[in-house]
């Protein structure tokens, strides 16, 4: 076991809206080791993106607020840092790529401007050095004709190319952690394959830890070393990737795995999870998953299960799994 690069403990991020409080992230724990990839899986609204924004210190104010918890990054609690200190970490030690490559780049600046901006800011390079480095980075992410691309604007590039640019930009300061929020969801399958291969290759070369957020279990299996499954703002299962796919324990994880048609196993019907994701303002009593869980008992309706170790390195948050019913 390596050392933890980042450790999130009891993170709570709430949003205060007119209709009530949304507990977008409600007590989340996980850790990522240097150079490893952690996959965070969950459906829309489970709080996975807000978790990443909390780590970056970019929870949209004034509605959103981090209400509790600690985020240790190299032994420093990010939540206790000043905005000034946090800014030195953003884009430098921790950087991020987003789901929508088409809208994540500023349309009125050239690709070169946007990459060199980070380098000039964090690495204190001058314009010429930064431009050279930017071109190196573009070459690294597999963009030929880098010297031409730096002078182009985002609208002149395809979606796949833009995501490569985003990656080049995010990696240009050699961050220790790269947060990738659904990096391939908006891309076509063949382009997705390109980007995933690129990310895997770069991870090995640069020794960057990756926090990969996705709803696609296939991508997780492909990329991650360790997996965290989230549901309604909570972690429901936490295991190594092999363990999770071989021995999924939480009914939600099971449901997720079974509801995706499998290419290798022919099934007549998909096993689905009935119902819908609960309204974040009126979360059900007890275990948040119980209204959709076919094993739910009275206890599940009343008390909230804790995330506890099931076997070594495999944590589950379910009464049934821990035989506490």
């Amino acid at each position, binding site marked *: 076991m390596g050392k933890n690069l980042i450790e999130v403990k009891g993170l709570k991020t709430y949003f205060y809206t007119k209709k009530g409080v949304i507990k977008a992230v409600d007590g989340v724990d996980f850790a990522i080791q240097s150079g490893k990839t952690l996959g965070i899986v969950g459906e829309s609204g489970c709080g996975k993106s807000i978790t990443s924004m909390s780590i970056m210190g970019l929870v949209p104010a004034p509605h959103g607020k981090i209400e509790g918890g600690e985020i240790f990054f190299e032994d420093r609690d990010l939540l206790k840092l000043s905005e000034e200190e946090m800014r030195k970490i953003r884009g430098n030690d921790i950087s991020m790529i987003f789901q929508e490559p088409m809208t994540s780049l500023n349309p009125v600046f050239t690709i070169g401007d946007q990459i060199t901006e980070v380098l000039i800011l964090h690495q204190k390079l001058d314009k010429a050095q930064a431009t050279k480095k930017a071109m190196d980075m573009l070459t690294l992410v597999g963009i030929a004709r880098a010297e031409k691309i730096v002078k182009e604007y985002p609208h002149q590039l395809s979606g796949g190319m833009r995501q490569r640019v985003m990656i080049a930009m995010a990696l240009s300061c050699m961050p220790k952690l790269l947060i990738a929020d659904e990096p391939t969801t908006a891309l076509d399958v063949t382009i997705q*394959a390109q980007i995933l291969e690129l990310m895997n290759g770069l991870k090995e070369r640069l020794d960057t830890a990756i926090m990969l957020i996705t709803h*696609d279990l296939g991508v997780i*299996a492909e990329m991650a070393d360790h997996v965290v499954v989230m549901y309604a703002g909570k972690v429901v299962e936490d295991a190594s990737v092999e363990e999770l796919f071989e021995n999924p324990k939480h009914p939600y994880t099971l449901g997720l795995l079974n509801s*995706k048609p499998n*290419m290798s196993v022919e099934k007549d019907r998909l096993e689905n*999870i009935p119902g819908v994701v609960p309204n974040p303002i009126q979360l059900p009593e007890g275990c948040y998953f119980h209204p959709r869980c076919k094993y739910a008992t009275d206890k599940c309706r009343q008390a909230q299960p804790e995330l506890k170790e099931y076997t070594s390195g495999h944590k589950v948050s379910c009464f049934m799994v821990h035989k506490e019913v």
Partner: protein
Amino acid sequence: MSTPVLEVKNLKKYFPIQSGFLKTRQGDVKAVDDISFTIQEGQTLGLVGESGCGKTTAGRTILRLTDATDGQVLYKGKDVFKASKKEMMELRQQMQIVFQDPYSSLNPRMTIGEIIGEALVEHKLYKKGSELTDRVTEILELCGMARYHINRYPHEFSGGQRQRIGIARALALNPSFIVGDEPVSALDVSIQAQVINLMKDLQQKLGLSYLFISHDLSVVKHISDRVGVMYLGSLVELADKKDLYDTPKHPYTQALLSAIPVPDPKKKTKRIILQGDIPSAANPPSGCKFHTRCPYAKEICKAEVPVFKNMGSNHFVACHLVDQF
């Protein structure tokens, strides 16, 4: 083999590119460029391809939602494009469509009852009144919704429910053929499974035939009997599901299949990564449109358009080099 419900012969749909002061025609986007296939009664044909390959346009042209440039579509032997206004009204009862976007596909100013019942009144099958309400209720219940939903508006429903309403609307006229235009792509995985199961159940109960358009190969595999693969407006391969997925013959299909991330960390197979981006449909490559990205491309591929030929047991492939694989 039963009788074909739908025969598509050499279907073409070109969109003119206009520009300049006088809106002169500068060329064509060949969105659908000469595709042919048939769908048997009670069966599902899956149409897969990446964005911009023309699969959506194909679906809409078949239903005559836009006028075709050339070609023929026969519904149970009747030429759809040559049908008179009156004949078309009858055909509309037989052929329906379910859309991708659960938000824009329902008119926000109409109640669910109006959305589903509208066509029944228009086709003079029912008069407004309790009988109509009963029929609408029946359809709603068939799709897993309830009677009290009738007076509600679309904005009150979740994505999955909206998609059910979309299906209910399509079923109202009792059609026998339905085009599903990415009907589950906008949904979360667990909701996707619900809608796919619903579509399969309805197919069995009502003997429907589907043209299922999707970019998700695993979903298509699950629901289809036969699968066609499109690239830049053309079909490159068309075969029974098992043949296509087990022994893909076109290099594009092979790459596409190998590009899908498999939700099994142990199966990290070596994948074929296609280089480059999908070319623009406004300016497609000469010869075989795939040659710019094909790992096996030869001189002939740049010069000649490959024939879409039957390789036995109705397995069609458009590739010069197919015999070498």
